[in-house]
């Protein structure tokens, strides 16, 4: 087994070798500009781009004309939210989102607030999921746009976006859904899902980094103001020369995802359950977020009485992500875990383990064993664990803050 073991598939996935193979000729041989209409180099590149558009559309059961290529999810979210808000601003100036969205959504909303829009940031329930009732209550006559993610990137929970889509459609509110963590992992059917704008990216589904797609509904038609101006590519929504090799990679990744999603998910779920079974034996361990309404790839757990940075240092043989941004001087716990109502200590001592297509059973059992051993070792060192074991209520202790 090669160390460290990669268990951070929600951060990014390796490019599937089949995808990489498919991309290579588009760098050296079929290198034409897909916008070149006057020669075969351009025509061939355009053909490849359109074939890929078909694969991405098929993955979410959409029309290829509804797919707009972007540089990735951050751009997709910016284009969807700013583009729609700017276009519909005469109808109203109120937006709804929620607090555990990705920064690409939250920061875009902050920017719109600076431009004079009003944004409601909904709290999530303790299980990490946004409440339909609270969403309904936040709707105002001047609400023009709502943005709720399908799957949360840190805790993997699935929001009730299908029901929210119905509500928005009935009220004439444009609904944007960031489906980056869901793409290739959950069934998405745009024929039945009442969502107007949907963000996808290739590098979370075994495609290359630097290429994404924004689904823009045609029936009923959704309008947006472009955010990048130029040659009028992508029906004017997003100018800029298309990155043919990246697009081909995304297309192939989407095609494979559609074919293999069901079997991949089943395998990964078994591995995740095995991992949780192993970790569950540890005392004072907490799963962050709902374990049922969750994609099968994600396990996010907190270990009480263990400090986050030392935990990450202890498990350096597995590449996982931490709930704590510890490299900076200010110890800032994850805003997602704080939104669940977790204490600072528990938010700090969390790790996110995300599995994927190339994760093996041997790797999972190594990871579970490593975590068990290291948490035990750190607790052996922890005065808080000692006090807990002696029955001291840590909340009653007068700590000297420093």
């Amino acid at each position, binding site marked *: 087994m090669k160390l460290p073991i990669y268990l951070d598939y929600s951060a990014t996935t390796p490019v599937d070798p089949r995808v990489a193979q498919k991309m290579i000729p588009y760098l050296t041989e079929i290198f034409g500009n897909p916008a070149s209409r006057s020669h075969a180099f351009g025509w061939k590149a355009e053909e490849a781009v359109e074939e890929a558009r078909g694969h991405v559309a098929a993955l979410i059961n959409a029309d290829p004309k509804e797919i707009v290529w972007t540089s990735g999810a951050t751009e997709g979210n910016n284009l969807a939210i700013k583009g729609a808000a700017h276009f519909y601003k005469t109808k109203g100036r109120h937006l709804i989102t929620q607090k555990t969205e990705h920064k690409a959504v939250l920061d875009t909303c902050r920017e719109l607030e600076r431009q004079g829009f009003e944004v409601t940031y909904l709290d999530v329930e303790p299980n990490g999921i946004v409440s339909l009732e609270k969403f309904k209550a936040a709707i105002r006559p001047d609400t023009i746009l709502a943005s709720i993610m399908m799957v949360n990137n840190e805790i993997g929970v699935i929001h009730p976006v299908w029901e929210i889509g119905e509500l928005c459609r009935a009220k004439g509110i444009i609904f944007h859904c960031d489906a980056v963590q869901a793409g290739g992992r959950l069934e998405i059917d745009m024929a039945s899902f009442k969502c107007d704008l949907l963000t996808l990216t290739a590098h979370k589904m075994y495609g290359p980094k630097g290429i994404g797609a924004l689904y823009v509904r045609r029936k009923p038609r959704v309008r947006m103001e472009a955010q990048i101006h130029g040659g009028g590519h992508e029906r004017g929504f997003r100018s800029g020369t298309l990155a043919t090799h990246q697009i081909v990679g995304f297309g192939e990744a989407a095609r494979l995802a559609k074919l293999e999603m069901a079997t991949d998910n089943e395998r990964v779920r078994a591995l995740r359950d095995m991992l949780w079974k192993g970790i569950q034996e540890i005392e004072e361990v907490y799963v962050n977020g709902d374990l049922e309404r969750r994609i099968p790839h994600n396990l996010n757990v907190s270990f009480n009485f263990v*400090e986050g940075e030392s935990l990450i240092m202890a498990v350096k043989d597995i590449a996982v992500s931490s709930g704590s941004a510890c490299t900076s001087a200010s110890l800032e716990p994850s805003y997602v875990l704080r939104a669940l109502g977790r204490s600072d200590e528990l938010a700090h001592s969390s790790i996110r383990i995300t599995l994927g297509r190339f994760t093996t059973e041997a790797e999972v059992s190594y990871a579970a064993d490593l975590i068990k051993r290291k948490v035990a070792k750190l607790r052996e060192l922890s*005065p808080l664990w000692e006090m807990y074991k002696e029955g001291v209520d840590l909340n009653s202790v007068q700590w000297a803050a*420093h």
Partner: protein
Amino acid sequence: MAYSDKVIDHYENPRNVGSFEKGDEAVGTGMVGAPACGDVMKLQIKVGADGRIEDARFKTYGCGSAIASSSLVTEWVKGKTLDEAATIRNTQIAQELSLPPVKIHCSILAEDAIKAAIDDYRKKHGTGAAEEKKVA
């Protein structure tokens, strides 16, 4: 985060981990820090009949640098008198472990932990005031 080899050594093989009986007359206990800040250090010293620290123990909840700082000072205080131990400065700890600026607070906490343990021992023996004067 790049840790120095010395930090990694103390983190991987911490010295003198454990606890002495708190009520023991020969033991001084110092507990500093707070869970919400991400560091809690407990340092204990055992003082011999000759007034020298004959043994020390620690437990630390905190990052690698905090664990290394407290592990290091358990080694340093051994064999010292209380007055000598009280002269250990955080700058010496930071220098020995090559702590980066963002981790200086770990060395400060370790210095505070020594002082707290000495204070606790002196309180038990009712010599606090007199000894303090000598230190100053």
